[in-house]
């Protein structure tokens, strides 16, 4: 064992007072006024704003969301028809009109995306479809958040046999082809009302999409639960549920937020797919998927009936994915390798 003094390493021995004085608490009274540091969230926000693609995504998502929420109401106020309004009179004069075209072929602002096969305004329907699609996406994600985060955190923190059983259940559910599960669920409990069908859709999508979330949160909790602050919390008498929900789950929020933003487009896509197949949203309620399904029937003659809902959906999904990627980079800068 080398115990001789090595002159090369002498500079490593810091005994001088200069680095000690640098600590703010050596002279508490001289520490001066308190400067507020940047919080983690503000830091992440700044990093997000530097990512152009993510900012574009954020803007598109906000615009689409606001337009979907107020659009149908605004159209009702301006033009006086709802998304499911079918004009009376000569059906052939009002159906499948090209964009910006009135019944007599003249230019008009009334139908910027034309009309559909029954004469309903396509623009209003796309906006209302956005409402449904975003609603399904966000609500199902919230359901999956609620189940997945709780499930994963409980399994990870309690560990042992319970963890084993809980995660094997997840493995079993994972191995089922979930689209088929959803289709079976939806066709078995087929609801008579469109609203009932929508609720069924939430349940079906939410109940299969929490699995990955549970795994992510469990992994996070496993690495967190051995940290000293958890021991410290236990040593101060904090109860187990409180440790899980107050101390551990907030610490997993970064990856959870990222995964949630990436789950929304995934669920929207599944919803569109199901509606396209006719299992999802039923007319007169529209979603982007059901609009695309209607449009595909006339794609050769009236291509705008497919193009408008399709492009709107693709744009929104792209934006959500860019936003999710941006959030991941912003919240976890160490993960960014390039």
């Amino acid at each position, binding site marked *: 064992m080398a*115990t001789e003094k090595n002159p090369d390493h002498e500079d490593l021995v810091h005994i001088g007072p200069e680095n000690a004085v640098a600590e703010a*608490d*050596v002279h*508490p009274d001289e520490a001066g006024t308190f400067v507020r540091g940047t919080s983690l969230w503000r830091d992440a926000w700044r990093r997000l704003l530097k990512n152009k693609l993510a900012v574009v995504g954020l803007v598109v998502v906000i615009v689409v969301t606001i337009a979907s929420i107020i659009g149908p109401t605004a159209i009702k106020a301006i033009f006086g028809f709802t998304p499911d309004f079918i004009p009376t009179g000569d059906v052939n004069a009002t159906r499948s009109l090209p964009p910006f075209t009135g019944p007599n072929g003249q230019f008009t602002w009334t139908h910027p995306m034309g009309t559909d096969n029954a004469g309903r305004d396509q623009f209003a329907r796309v906006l209302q479809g956005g409402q449904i699609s975003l609603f399904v996406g966000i609500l199902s994600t919230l359901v999956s958040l609620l189940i997945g985060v709780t499930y994963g955190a409980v399994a990870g923190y309690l560990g042992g046999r319970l963890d084993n059983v809980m995660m094997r259940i997840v493995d079993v559910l994972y191995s089922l082809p979930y689209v088929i599960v959803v289709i079976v669920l939806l066709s078995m409990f087929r609801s008579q009302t469109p609203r009932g069908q929508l609720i069924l859709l939430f349940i079906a999508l939410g109940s299969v999409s929490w699995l990955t979330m549970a795994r992510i949160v469990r992994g996070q909790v496993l690495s967190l639960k051995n940290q000293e602050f958890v021991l410290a919390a236990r*040593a101060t*008498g904090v*109860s187990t549920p409180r440790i899980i929900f107050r*101390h551990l789950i*907030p610490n997993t*929020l970064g990856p959870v937020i990222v995964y949630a933003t990436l789950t929304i487009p995934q669920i929207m896509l599944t919803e569109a797919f199901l509606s396209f197949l006719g299992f999802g949203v039923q007319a007169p309620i529209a979603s982007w998927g059901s609009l695309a399904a209607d449009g595909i029937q006339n794609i050769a003659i009236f291509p705008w009936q497919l193009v408008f809902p399709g492009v709107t959906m693709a744009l929104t999904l792209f934006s959500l994915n860019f936003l999710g990627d941006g959030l991941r980079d912003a919240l976890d800068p160490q993960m960014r390798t390039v």
Partner: protein
Amino acid sequence: MSSDGNLLEVKNLRTYFETDDGLVKAVDGISFQLKRGETLGIVGESGSGKSVTNLSIIRLIPEPPGKIAGGEVIFNGTDLLLLPNDAIRKIRGRRIAMIFQDPMTSLNPYMKISRQLMEMTELHLGHTKAQARTHAIRMLETVGIPDAQARADSYPHEFSGGMRQRVMIAMALSCEPELLIADEPTTALDVTIQAQILELIKKLKRETGTSVILITHDLGVVAGMTDHVIVMYAGKIFEQARTNELFARPGNPYTKGLLRSVPDPTDEQGKLYQIPGLPPDVAHLKPGCPFAPRCDRVQDVCKREFPPFVQLNADHYSLCHFAQEVYSESGGTPA
């Protein structure tokens, strides 16, 4: 309350860990007492069972693989090892508080300092939010955080290591516990901050009359802070004495070795003494004295038989076949 003034009495405590490598007897038959208002130091190398002893006292041993295999921990007349989980949780933090080694990781990074302090008194003293906040700020002032009112709403990463350890102390003392367990509270701090933190613990102990168990591997800290010292090795108590007695007249070759290993700042040149070898693997202890392979006065009997726990005088004990001789050599007169 126990009659003889003992706040804490640990009797034959044994904590084992079930590992792939076999049964690890991390703590094997530890007994000691702590009187009200006194400070007990526990020293020993890494892995000697210091921290496990104290985690066992408040039952924070991870189970499995850990298990408290036997013994009693009598705190104020009740055996903590027999209490139901709810009852022990009311004692943790309220009556027995802990400070941990690394202030960098023992605060929740996502919670404001104020929230973490408030959690304690809301939980144990039934404070309302407003009361808890006032109390938290007063505690921060007590431990010397300047501008506590403004800083209370900071996050832990905005504090330096020394300040975080102060926050930990504020948290530990906010319910005025009867016993404070400080598990290497200054190991992660630099020397000047270390002195301040120890001074702070000393001052608060004087003001509140709290008993303290101080775990450390720094003999200098023990000398300045404690009334009694326990020297641990391989899960056993090797020597137990009043602090000044232990430093003046050690009765165990291991303690002597530890004392010799303390670097002397006036001695510029020359080699630093170290006890040869490494601490033993407690999963595979051979019969005989666990220190025998490293001991400079090892005899045949040491390798064969486990040493006796010899009483050297009123409150000085040593685990060694030759305790009396070692004690005489250091200038003590065995009783």
